């Protein structure tokens, strides 16, 4: 297309598109409807760069105010999270913002708002929030968020020492999602090496746990992982998906260059490429072979 024609077409597109509304979060759309005007006004704040010094305190006050409807407080929190990306413009209000979040991280606050507050605080490695999350994991009656969320939030602190509590949750939890969240915290702790090796090889374990164990074992002990992975990859009685996962891990990391010179292994991998209708495994074979 000629560039002048393209310019004219784009001018028309801009004119037509300028009235398009911002998408609303689907889960909250119905509850937010009665407050549409207030929410719309709040949602414009991130664009109003010059007015932020006055708008941000107002948003924080709205967030704190328990008498304000929850959808409006949620909109205020969304706007504050967005303007937090303006870094230094937001910095003068940061302490007050975090204080407001601590205030709403309580049982009587709307669950989503409470969860959002704890996520942000834990990302700031806020000891108060971390303590609340730990207490909730230790005693379900004290939990402010589901265990899986508490574990995800604690993981935000890569120097936090939450391995012991994660191990405890892992042993007690019944649902896979919580076990996965706990194992993610444990996966790079040296004490978990044996557990990861066992989970990876245990065909009765859920795929999500075996996959995560592959990543963790590879991180902690690449050579051991390679040894286990080769057995799994060539084990036709194991599930295709975990075989693909193991091969994908070998293809991706720089620790396994020696395998690319192991003619017996390479020949075996080539044969896998012609095994039955195994799409994921074939795809992983292709990626591994492309590294040769």
């Amino acid at each position, binding site marked *: 297309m000629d560039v002048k024609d393209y310019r004219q077409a784009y001018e028309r597109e*801009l004119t037509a598109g*300028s009235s398009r509304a911002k998408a609303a979060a689907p889960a909250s759309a119905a509850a937010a409807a009665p407050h549409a005007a207030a929410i719309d006004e709040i949602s414009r704040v991130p664009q109003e760069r010059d007015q932020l010094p006055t708008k941000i305190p107002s948003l924080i006050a709205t967030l704190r105010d328990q008498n304000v409807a929850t959808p409006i407080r949620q909109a205020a929190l969304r706007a504050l999270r967005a303007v937090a990306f303006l870094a230094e413009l937001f910095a003068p209000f940061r302490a007050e913002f975090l204080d407001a979040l601590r205030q709403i991280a309580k049982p009587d606050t709307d669950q989503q708002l409470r969860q959002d507050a704890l996520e942000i605080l834990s990302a700031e490695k806020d000891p108060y929030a971390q303590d609340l999350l730990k207490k909730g994991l230790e005693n379900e009656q004290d939990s402010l968020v589901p265990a899986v969320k508490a574990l995800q939030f604690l993981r935000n602190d890569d120097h936090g020492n939450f391995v012991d509590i994660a191990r405890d949750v892992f042993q007690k939890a019944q649902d896979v999602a919580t076990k996965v969240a706990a194992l993610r915290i444990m996966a790079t702790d040296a004490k978990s090496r044996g557990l990861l090796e066992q989970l990876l090889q245990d065909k009765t374990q859920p795929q999500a746990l075996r996959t995560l164990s592959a990543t963790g074992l590879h991180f902690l002990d690449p050579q051991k992982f390679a040894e286990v992975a080769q057995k799994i990859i060539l084990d036709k009685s194991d599930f295709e998906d975990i075989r693909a996962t193991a091969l994908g891990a070998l293809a991706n990391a720089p620790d396994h260059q020696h395998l690319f010179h192991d003619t017996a292994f390479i020949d075996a991998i080539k044969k896998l490429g012609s095994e039955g209708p195994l799409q994921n495994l074939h795809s992983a074979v292709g990626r591994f072979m492309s590294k040769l």
Partner: protein
Amino acid sequence: MTVQIEIPGTDPQGRVFLTWAPVRATARWDGASTSGSLDIVLRSAGTGGGLVFNNVRSDQNLPTLNLTLPTDGTKVPFWIAGEFQKPSAAYGDAVVQATANGGGGVVGSKSVMVRIRKNAQTLSGPERDRLLAAVGTLNAQGQGAYRDFREMHTNATTREMHGNVGFLPWHRAYVLDLERALQSIDPSVAVPYWRFDEPAPSLFTRDFIGESDPSGEVVFRPGHALEHWVTDGQPGLTRELDFDVNSPANVISEADTFGLGGSGSAYASFMAMEGDPHGTAHTSFGGPISRIGTAVRDPLFFMLHANVDRLWAKWQWFKHRQNPQDSKAFAPANPNKIGHHLADTMWPWNGITGNTRPPVAPGGPFPPTPVTSAPGPTPKVEDMFDMLGVRGGPPLACAYDDVPFELPPALVAGGGGAGPG
């Protein structure tokens, strides 16, 4: 073949990568030396990427070009560019072909790639998989160079790139740095953009950037290149969508972004996009991508920022604001905002640490590419303005699928054919 086509920027493997920016190439007779000349026609003969030609540097290029080659081997210059909206999908699917005029056969050809940043939603399966393989290799399960990119963008370094006028130039350099790192693994890769004001259901899948399970953990297809993603010593990704995957994210539209500050808006108004759609795109999720200090843990970051950069590039094109000295193309930084002034070199590529700069500078100088000399090893803010080189300087060797090469009106009025050789 008796006609040799030479295009500058050829890499050591003999590969050529083009964008929409015209490049001055040459054709020469390489057959037996006889008296006289040979008339040839250049045309695009590939199965994917399209090519256009001209005798002068222009934004009105032609599908074919007649050249007369002296048979003594003298090089004859011409201009070649990717045909706008006909990008390549793989290396070699764009071909410049020379045929002898008057119905003669093919006397020369060269395979190239029109390497363009595309909408992630529209990538073909092979394009997607090459990209992911390169990203996975760069991460190398936490041991690769992705670590440097992660360390560049943290709470401790935020002064260098957020909250001021250098936001857009710094992130343009950052995305380009990553793109060049990916291209060192697979040169056919370009960073796609996540068009966050449109639905992108193909992007948030197990085959692409991952599907979020009900708890927000990102799940990939077994064997996927990002399945063993590790950053900060932690495996995996958390990303919870706060919008329906078949809807746009919670951002203003492209049209509204262009409308920031009104129809005659200058950079000072346009930069409000740092809050919305940029900030709101980040906060359309729960998880690391929703916060400055951890956003780069999620590789979606670079597709999000490619779109932020695309919006700036498109705004620059639409309003002819590629000249950093134009008062509407940029806005002055406060005097104490080191790294945000036009003539400031940007951290970390300048290697400057301490004082007002962060204590370390990960990653080293800006990586070179055979394709262009821009932006150089220690780019300044002002070096990031003219992506396609419309003002005559070297282009950055990247381009978006919906931002064309168009000469500035002043250059057209003054004769666009006088561009650099």
